[in-house]
């Protein structure tokens, strides 16, 4: 991995509003964002931001909403123009690019992945992936060839001609990723790409990104509001607050030496959630039975769902126990009522039980764990396999 600088940001400031010079004066005198807005009506989106991104690294920018992280990522491909300051791409000032140079820069050097995917619903998967090649007039044969390769790389082969509306969130973002990679850009801009996905899919996608990164060695600028994600993916992490960068460092150094209380709190919040809890890994129970159901109905229910145990709940979804298929068949053959054969001795946990504590429970449990809330209502189940897969 060479260590040269791909992008250098020098004193970028971005203001929205009319009375900019007064706002700049106020900011220079040390006023904060809110005061400036109240006094001048100017929104300070970015203030004096400088950093360097090295070739081949994942540069994670983290901050809460309104911290300016989405604004800055849009400056790199000129979707936003900074009010002042300079951005250099491989030593060239991108603001000095001519119109054609800007187009070429966007077509060949830098691509973007969007939070809500930014896919074109009137095009199928393949036509979305090849969009960037289409606008630079790559012949159809060639771009479809390239598009298929990219679709295969993100694991969507066979879905080339599906409409976008038929895909799940995770699949949509794979299309977004494939589209960005199709142009073979040196730099990938990722604007909270996995925020709209549920936790399990998000982990898959993070893994996918790391494995693609391992193969292609792209430079990635990755925006997130999730410190776990930033620490997991980032070689370098920058924390932003109110349009300013507070600290830039490797994840290790940052957790060892947080620059101030704000960063420390951010990192602490990571430690609490870094370990997943039951609600993150549980799945909805596939087969529910009510105590008043007749046995043959319970058997049918289990058969339809292809499981050998059913979870018994009362009318208010309160958990009562489980019934195995053997017991249900016995009940039917001997004409016994269902409730007499319910096994209440099932391991349970609540939604916030940490995975660490579930591992030991799951290891000794005969059936998947039942996840209950405070009122004993059944919220989901966790099988041994899901626990192990989450590690």
């Amino acid at each position, binding site marked *: 991995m060479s260590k040269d600088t791909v992008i250098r940001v020098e004193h970028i400031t971005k203001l929205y509003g009319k009375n900019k010079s007064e706002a700049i004066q106020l900011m220079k005198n040390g006023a904060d964002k809110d005061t400036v807005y109240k006094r001048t009506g100017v929104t300070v989106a970015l203030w004096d931001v400088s950093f360097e991104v090295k070739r081949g690294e994942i540069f994670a920018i983290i901050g809460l909403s309104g911290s300016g992280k989405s604004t800055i990522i849009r400056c790199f*491909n000129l*979707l936003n123009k900074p009010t002042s300051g300079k951005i250099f791409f491989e030593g060239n000032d991108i603001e000095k690019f001519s119109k054609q140079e800007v187009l070429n820069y*966007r077509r060949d050097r830098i691509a973007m992945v969007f939070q*809500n995917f*930014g896919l*074109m619903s009137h095009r199928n998967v393949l036509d979305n992936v090849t969009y960037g090649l289409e606008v630079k007039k790559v012949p159809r044969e060639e771009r479809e060839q390239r598009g298929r390769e990219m679709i295969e790389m993100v694991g969507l082969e066979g879905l080339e001609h599906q*409409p976008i509306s038929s895909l799940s969130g995770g699949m949509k973002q794979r299309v977004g990723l494939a589209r960005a990679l199709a142009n073979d850009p040196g730099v990938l801009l990722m604007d909270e790409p996995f925020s709209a996905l549920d936790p399990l899919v998000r982990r898959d996608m993070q893994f996918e990104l790391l494995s693609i990164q391992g193969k292609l060695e792209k430079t990635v600028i990755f925006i997130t509001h999730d410190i776990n994600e930033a620490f997991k993916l980032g070689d370098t992490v920058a924390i932003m607050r109110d349009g300013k960068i507070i600290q830039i460092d490797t994840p290790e150094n940052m957790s060892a030496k947080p620059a101030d209380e704000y960063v420390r709190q951010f990192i602490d919040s990571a430690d609490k959630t870094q370990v997943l809890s039951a609600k993150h890994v549980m799945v909805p129970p596939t087969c529910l039975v009510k105590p008043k159901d007749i046995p043959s109905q319970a058997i049918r229910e289990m058969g339809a769902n292809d499981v050998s145990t059913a979870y018994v709940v009362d009318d208010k979804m309160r958990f009562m126990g489980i019934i195995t298929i053997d017991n249900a068949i016995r009940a039917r053959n001997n004409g016994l009522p269902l409730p007499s054969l319910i096994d209440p001795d099932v391991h349970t946990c609540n939604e916030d039980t940490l995975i660490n504590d579930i591992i030991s429970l799951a290891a000794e449990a005969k059936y998947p764990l039942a996840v209950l809330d405070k009122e004993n209502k059944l919220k989901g189940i966790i099988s041994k396999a899901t626990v192990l897969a989450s590690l």
Partner: protein
Amino acid sequence: MKEYLLNFPDAWQFNIGTAIDDWIKNFSRTHREILGFIKRSVITSIKSINELLSIIPWWLLILIVMLLGWRVSGKKRVGLLYGVMLFFIGSSGLWDHMLETLSIVIASVILSVLLGFPLGILLALNKRADGIVRPILDLMQTMPTFVYLVPAVILFSVGMTPALMATTIYAIVPMIRLTSHGINHVDTEVVEAAIAFGSTTLQSLVKVQIPQALPTIMAGVNQTIMMAMSMVVTCALIGANGLGMEILVATNRTEMGKALMPGICIVFIAIILDRLTQGFVDNKEYNTFFRRRPMR
């Protein structure tokens, strides 16, 4: 009590109306040749649309509409209903009048789309143009429709041409509005994506914004058709032949039944046109109407 406190003083009254009258009359005198040319080409095009419609045998037109109704709604009985409606118009002896009315509607819808679509795009892309044109559109929509008839008559005398002009002015508004609205409300990230991958303004417009706005634009076409349909009846007052003229004549003679029949026909045509074009709008896979179907 002084007189001028009770009534608006005469001395302060002025009338720009007469000035406008003079100006329009003068304009029609000085530009007689251009106006004549417009008039001839409008008449020719409406006539040719009418001839085109007349070439189609009545039973074929009914069949086509039935088939379209079935395809668009997905129900056979809807197609059948449309067929019955058209058959009713024919059996009322109003077939040719219907074709005349349709010719003006079609001509003005074509004109509205040709002018309104690019104008709508311009308004969506250019804030200043939007600021200028939008109040004019509001004015055009709130102005009583009869007001359009007079200048149209002064410029083109009575007949098809002023009818077409008045109808187009009235019907073009939703086309412009909905085109502009549709383009403006394409998901921001999708437009950003188009730009971020290096589209020129034109590429982003043609490849992304227009196709994404198509359902809204089609709703605009639908609205334009409906507006043209309602205006074309009023245009009987300035000599547009067709169903409206039948109603006007019957009304003047206070013949209720005779006025009702063409009235019902207009309702039928309006229903059919509305539902057929609406069907295109509502269709979730609208894109497949315009692009090759995805292979499965």
